[in-house]
C-alpha cells in the first residue's frame, strides 16, 4: 500500500501558514529574552484572536508568549497534526469517518471547561488548558486527511 497525495500545493501552503502561526504564538522570546515588547508583531497578530492574559500564558526565555496556554495547545498541535496527516491517512480505517465527531467533542470539552471555570465550579490550570486546547488543535486537520492523502493498494 502506498500513500497517494493530492492538492499538494494547498497542503504545503496551509502548512506554511500554520507553522507561521505557531512560531508567532511562541512570542518574541524565541528571538531574544528579557525586555518587555508589548508592540512586537507576534502580540499584534494575536491581539484580536486571544486575550493574551499573562496569568494564563506560558513564557519563553522569560518573555510572555503571544497566546494563552489553551491557544498554544491549539496552534502547536494544529501544526503537529497537519504535519502528520500522511501518517494518519496511512493508518486510518477508511470505513470509519469519526473525525467530525472527535472535533465536536474537543470543542464541547473546551466549552465545558470555559463555562465551569467561569462559574467557579472548578479552576482550570495552565496544563489542563494546554491539554484541552491540544485536543482541539489536533482534531482539526484529521477531518481533512482524505482530501490530501489516500491509500492506494
Amino acid at each position, binding site marked *: 500500500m502506498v500513500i497517494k497525495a493530492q492538492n499538494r500545493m494547498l497542503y504545503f501552503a*496551509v502548512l506554511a501558514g500554520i507553522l507561521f*502561526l505557531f512560531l508567532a504564538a511562541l512570542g518574541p522570546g524565541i528571538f531574544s529574552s528579557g525586555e*518587555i515588547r*508589548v508592540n512586537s508583531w507576534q502580540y*499584534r497578530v494575536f*491581539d*484580536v484572536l486571544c*486575550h*493574551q492574559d499573562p496569568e494564563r500564558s506560558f513564557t519563553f526565555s522569560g518573555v510572555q508568549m503571544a497566546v494563552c496556554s489553551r491557544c498554544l495547545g491549539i496552534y502547536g498541535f494544529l501544526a503537529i497534526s497537519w504535519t502528520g496527516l500522511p501518517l494518519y491517512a496511512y493508518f486510518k480505517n477508511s470505513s470509519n469517518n469519526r473525525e467530525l465527531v472527535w472535533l465536536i467533542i474537543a470543542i464541547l470539552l473546551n466549552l465545558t471547561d470555559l463555562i465551569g471555570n467561569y462559574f467557579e465550579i472548578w479552576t482550570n490550570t495552565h496544563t489542563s488548558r494546554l491539554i484541552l486546547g491540544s485536543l482541539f488543535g489536533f482534531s482539526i486537520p484529521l*477531518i481533512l486527511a482524505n482530501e490530501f492523502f489516500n491509500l492506494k493498494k
Partner: protein
Amino acid sequence: MENEQVQPSYWNSVIIASLMVGIVVSLFSIIGGYMMLGNEPDGAMFNSSQLFQALGCLIGAFGGIFVNWHYAKGYDITYKIGKGALLGLLVGLIGTIFTVAITQLWNVIDPSYQEALMEWSRQNVEAMQMTAEMKEQMMARMEDPYSLSNIAIGALTMFAGLGILNVISGLIGAKVFASEE
C-alpha cells in the same frame, strides 16, 4: 469532484460573510474598548476587555465555514476543497478591510474614542511596575491611531491571523457542506 457545468459566482456569499466578519469583529472590538475605558488603569499589560475582543475575532475566524455553507447550500452545488480555501481567504481579506473601515467610521462618529483609549493607555503605562526608562520607551512606542502606516500595519497583522484561520475554516466548510462524499 467539481460539477462539470459553470458554477455561479461566489462573490455574493463572500461579501455577505465578509460583512458579517467585519461587523462582528469591529463591534466586539469597539465594545471591548469602551469596557476598558470603564475600568481604572491598573498597570496590567493586558486586560479583561481583551477577552471580549478576542471572542469577536474567534467568531470571525468561522467566516470560512459560513461562506462555504452559504455558497454551497444557496446554489446546491459541490466543489473541490481548494475553492473552499480560496473562499475562506477572501473572507479573511475582505473581512479585515471591512473591520478597518468600520473602526475608522466609528472614529468619525465618536472622535473622542481613540483619544480616550490613548489617554487610558498612557495612564496604564504610568501605573506599571517598571523603571522610568522602560516606561519612557513604551510611551515612545505608543502609536498614532490615525497614522495611515499604523492602520495598514494593524490591518496586515490582523489579516495574517484572520486570513490563515479563515483558510482552515474554509477547508472544513468545503469538506462539510460542498463535498460530494
